[in-house]
């Protein structure tokens, strides 16, 4: 996270993104987001609008999308709020990319449960495919980021790639997912453990076994 930074302001950046605006489809969503709040409280929609801007840029650039400074300024103007307040929001949340990313943004969770379940191997597998932390790979396909807990501890280790989670990973399973994405396919999201559906226990229950058939009051046994 420490290497998070804004893409420097430059004449090239201004030339590329200076005239950027929502297209009608995203503008409709932006208006809907603003309409959720009382009049005069349009600032509350800042997170939604930044997300929409990033997604529109993602569509335009065939990537996950990112937020160049002129686009942040556009959102600030759109919501009639000081641009520094928008930058504060955009830099705070990891879901906003501040620098260009690849087609697939591979976010590897490295927090304790995932680490205990082998996230170091997942990270190594990503690096073995030519990804570097914080960089777009040479083919423009991948960007690798290490992130903090994504809340999938029961199916650790996991990665988030764009809007989807891939859980219960091993290096082989991750490679299968990444290969499928590289081929343009849509691999199964969620857990990659064969036979597992979501985060239900793997194999037989080891606790609360009496609860399987019917409700059971454990309190007397404590």
């Amino acid at each position: 996270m420490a290497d998070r930074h804004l893409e420097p302001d430059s004449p090239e950046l201004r030339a590329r993104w200076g005239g950027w605006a929502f297209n009608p489809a995203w503008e409709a969503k932006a208006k809907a987001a603003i309409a959720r709040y009382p009049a005069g409280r349009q600032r509350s929609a800042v997170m939604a609008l930044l997300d929409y801007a990033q997604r529109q840029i993602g569509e335009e650039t065939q990537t996950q999308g990112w937020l160049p400074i002129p686009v942040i300024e556009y959102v600030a103007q759109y919501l009639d709020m000081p641009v520094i307040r928008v930058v504060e929001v955009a830099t705070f949340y990891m879901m906003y990319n501040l620098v260009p990313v690849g087609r697939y943004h591979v976010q590897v969770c490295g927090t304790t449960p995932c680490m205990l379940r082998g996230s170091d191997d997942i990270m190594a597998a990503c690096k073995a495919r030519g990804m570097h932390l914080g960089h777009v790979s040479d083919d423009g396909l991948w960007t690798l980021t290490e992130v903090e807990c994504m809340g999938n501890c029961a199916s650790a280790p996991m990665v988030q790639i764009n809007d989807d989670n891939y859980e219960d990973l091993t290096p082989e399973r991750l490679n299968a997912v990444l290969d499928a994405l590289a081929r343009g396919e849509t691999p199964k999201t969620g857990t990659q453990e064969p036979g597992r559906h979501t985060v239900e226990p793997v194999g037989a229950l080891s606790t609360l076994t009496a609860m399987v058939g019917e409700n059971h009051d454990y309190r007397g046994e404590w």
Partner: protein
Amino acid sequence: MPKLKVDGVEIEVPAGATVLQACELAGKEIPRFCYHERLSIAGNCRMCLVEVKPGPPKPQASCALPASEGQEIRTDSEMVKKAREGVMEFLLINHPLDCPICDQGGECDLQDQSVAYGRGASRYHENKRAVTEKYMGPLIKTVMTRCIHCTRCVRFSEEIAGVDEIGALYRGEDTQITTYLEHAASHELSANVIDLCPVGALTSRPYAFEARPWELKKTLGIDVSDAVGANIRIDSRGREVLRILPRVNDDVNEEWLSDKARYQVDGLTRRRLDRPWLRKNGKLVAATWDEAFAAIAKVKPAASIAAVAGDMVDCETLFAAKALLGALGSNLLEGRQTGLKYATDNLAAVNFNSTFAGIETADAILIVGSHVRWEAPLVNARLRKAAKRGAKVFIIGPAWETTFPATFLGEDVGIINAVPDEVRAALLAAKRPAVIVGGGGLAKGALEPALALYSEVHSALVITDENEGWNGFNVLHMAASRMGGLMLGYAQGGGIADLGAAKPKLLLSLGADEVDYAAFADSIIVYVGHHGDKGAHAADVILPGSAYTEKAGTYVNTEGRVQFAEKAVFAPGDAREDWTILRALADALKVSVGFDSFEGLRAAMIAAVPALGIEGLADYGALPTGVSGTAAGVIAYPIKDFYLTNPIARASETMQRCSAELLHCETFAEAAE
């Protein structure tokens, strides 16, 4: 009024107080970094932890906890001590140990509080965080590694200054305080964040590495850069004023100070007049005091003498000059250098009657021809408070960037003759309506129609407890000497044009640098002042005087508030205190002015104008009634450059750079280090 116990002592605190305030009322010191009584509560430094019962069995942040009935607060328990030690240790994890090279050293909250509440030693062995320096303009020097993320600067710029330009970017340990894209902070109160910063992250750039606080002599003074009369502390070492800081005075400047008042001090050592000069064959040549006085005596002005006062002169100087002219039989006194000629027979009509603290409570404000942000930045902060409380603000005059919601009605002053219905309705509906006439409005004759409008509004006022004694008619002057000058009779019916028309043999210029001296081409001009500015260029004889830090004096601000300033340092070279020059001039012109000491002068002045002897608001009586008049013309604001309004500021390198960089958008390359 909840009753609660602090360390076993029962006290009663006002409703709405926080636990921190309750502890303060009980006389207990609570360490804090992020909490500041004039800013919103952030609660992010955690230094103010106390133990509160009833409540969860853990320390609580007292700054953000409302005091309530029956609380038992401990500030001296083992839990509190451990909590403070823990917080301090966390704060110091990433704080560099660079106190020996830090400008905040000696007046640093973190330093003081770590001595008082810290463990004494660190258990941290890992790497410390480092943050790159952020550019914040010519006044604020940043060392962001020292930042403890209290966000006082962010809250100040958002809440008090009303210019959102400082923000906290990124998150957690990586939080960085910065201006947007490292643009210079560019509002008139920006340097106050230096005072607010509890550590050495934001320090004064012009004062960098100049002195340690314990080396400085601290003198209580009054600021003269505008007519607000901000209370200042002049920090000097030897003969040099090194910096100026605000003093707390809730009635005047709260605890803020404009950038100009704070940073024009380096102008006090440049372009100074440190010896008398005489004009010989069209050229100024250095002279002695005796030669200068002899040259003036040779003019033999008798009653053909006039005096024009500059914007930064104290009342004692004004009175000494008045006494001198009186002894010679003249009363040609004028202080309004740029030609204003509003009526001054009733000073209540040209005073800021609502007071600065009062204007905060106004609920409808009409500003006529005043660029308040530049003419009185501290009043602008008050107007912002009023607007935040819901006051409607209307402005007649060219648009400027307000820091609060305001409606611009147009540039033509004629609007005041018959204000739009919307404005009239707002003023009539208000419980505390106010009108502020500025210099731009006075120049176009807006005083009379504004008075007429206000008296109409005032007579319609329903007097309740809320507005008992309310007088919302205000004139916002720009010169520190203005109200004092008017009280001492520095006003002619036709303004300074009367002086020109009288064709005096001798014109005494008391630091008057904004006068058009072309009107006095036939007069011998004697300039008593401290800077080689416009007045000195036009002068035939220059008598070097003292700047505001070099003499004791009485100043009256635009509210009519009489305030005393003390002398901090001696004037450079042969320069003397202004009153002594005028006293010696009386001898040279062979007249008697009736005082031989500063005390004698002050006594004579107080005998003539008793109000000048009492600190506080002077009483000018009631507003005149039955005033009418019309104003015409397009308003032009008198200040063209906020940073260069007086000779001291014009001589100051800091102010010149501010002007170039912040107003004229020049860029300065940073020196390589």
